[in-house]
């Protein structure tokens, strides 16, 4: 079990964080570190691609919420790309679907960044 985190610049000051694997209490610190480093560098517009994430728990959600909270302090935003029904279900039942921008494709998530 592991998580792979890849960060790439999309355009301008917008970055994409690709996550692949499982996000839980063991792996979420790695995700938190990657997102935290970007925000520390002044990147406040993020697309986090969860298409290859097979599993996420509350610690993973906590990392995403923490990232969103930080970028919003700077007028930024976090959009998520999520196509896995099980992952979407977790966002639905926790109500986080109303807090994050959630999109079916990276293009749509990128276009919706403010």
């Amino acid at each position: 079990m592991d998580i792979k985190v890849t960060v790439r610049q999309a355009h301008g000051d917008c970055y994409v964080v690709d996550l692949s694997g499982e996000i839980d209490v063991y792996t979420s610190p790695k995700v938190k570190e990657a997102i935290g480093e970007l925000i520390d560098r002044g990147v406040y517009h993020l697309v986090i691609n969860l298409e290859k994430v097979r599993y996420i728990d509350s610690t993973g959600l906590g990392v995403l919420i923490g990232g969103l909270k930080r970028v919003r302090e700077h007028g930024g935003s976090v959009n998520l790309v999520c196509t896995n029904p099980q992952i979407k279900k977790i966002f639905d039942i926790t109500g986080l679907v109303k807090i994050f921008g959630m999109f079916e494709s990276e293009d749509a998530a990128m276009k919706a960044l403010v």
Partner: protein
Amino acid sequence: MNQAAERVVPELVELRVPCRPEWVALARLAAATVANRLNITLEEIEDVKLAVAEACTAVIQHSGHGAFIELTCEALSDALRVRVHDSGRHGTPAGDGGPAMSFDEARVAGLGIFLIRTLMDEVSYDVHPQLGTDLLMIKRLAPTP
């Protein structure tokens, strides 16, 4: 592979793992494997996995290193019954945000217990003053037509 038709119930699986994050994946996999023995959908198996992981995470957040997480999964004819025992905590239900947690950690822990209560059909605590706390979770099976 779901071999529910060949299952012999009840079956009981016990697992004792160190109370550390790297062992949570094994605990949820064990629970999923037992759930897979029952007449249960893949979505419900995912629910069980997440609930067990949240329960284990709560134990880790409350107990110090050196403790153990004890998981018991029982495949019954009409339900999956899961017990997560926290020997390091006495009298405080999981996910309530104990005094050692930061505000953000407590909020995430609250999310965890919310998920457990949402995904499982029955959730209860059994608090032993000396022995620790058991979190009991039940996932009922759909009636066979």
